[in-house]
């Protein structure tokens, strides 16, 4: 345990667009950790410096076939990278990474998008029972037992 906390391997997962932009804004939190990013857009590689970078397919809950493919890809990446900690700003790739990562002993954190002002995203609601920490970026959405509020990307 001490080893993983002093030199943790962090897997940071986000789908494209706003999810990725928010992950990048949080990325100073990863400084000093061994780091691998998992996302859906190849051109994001230019933004991650020396960190490892893995691509998975872009899938949402409305396409079951692609979701199954995504599940296989995420499982493969986790088996290969063996992260100690998984942090995700959503959406489906992060959800699956947290579910699978937990099976392999990773500590997991979900950060719901700042776009979800009125209620937690559906993925966020579903991941609450599984992630070790589930954060919302709006104070009024925080609840006892989760999600918690610990600031925002803005």
């Amino acid at each position: 345990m001490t080893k993983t906390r002093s030199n943790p391997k962090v897997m940071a997962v986000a789908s494209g667009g706003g999810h990725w932009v928010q992950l990048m804004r949080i990325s100073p939190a990863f400084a000093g950790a061994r780091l691998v990013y998992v996302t859906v857009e190849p051109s994001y590689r230019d933004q991650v410096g020396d960190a490892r970078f893995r691509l998975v397919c872009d899938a949402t809950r409305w396409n079951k076939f692609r979701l199954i493919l995504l599940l296989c890809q995420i499982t493969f990446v986790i088996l290969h990278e063996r992260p100690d900690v998984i942090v995700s700003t959503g959406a489906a790739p992060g959800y699956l990474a947290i579910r699978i990562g937990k099976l392999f002993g990773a500590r997991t954190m979900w950060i719901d998008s700042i776009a979800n002002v009125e209620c937690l995203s559906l993925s966020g609601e579903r991941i609450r029972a599984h992630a070790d920490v589930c954060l919302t970026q709006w104070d009024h959405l925080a609840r006892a037992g989760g999600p918690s509020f610990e600031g925002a990307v803005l």
Partner: protein
Amino acid sequence: MIFVTVGHQMPFDRLISAVDAWAGERGRDDVFAQIGETELRPRHIRWAAKIDPAEFRERVEAAETIVSHAGMGTILTALELGRPILVMPRRESLSETRNDHQVATAVRFRELGRVSVAMDASEIPGLLDRLGSIPAGDRISTEASPRLINAVRGFIFEDRRPI
């Protein structure tokens, strides 16, 4: 130059049509739009279906104003680069998105004074005519709030969890 963008997931023809019509009426030839995968073909503005993230950021930085859907990626990029932004939320009822979270996002960010909002297409010409009145704030930092960064860091390195 006005940069219009609909994001990377779905087209947003209602927005593009409104801006295209306005540009035609005003004789504007300095509008560029990223329109997504759509069969709509604008008549008065230059366009591309998709642009890469580097070009996207360059166009935001160079633009007088951004006009877009109420997507967080675009809003955050515009704020990071200190550009004024006018958004129109996508509507689930019009099959433009899967839920109405963009409406709440737009309203909340307007309340925070960060974006201008057209709640529907009829408001767009008037708001575009008054582009100079859309405020541009200072560039926001490119980092999340210290509180959030500390919370994530604390979890990673010390297994610190919210109470």
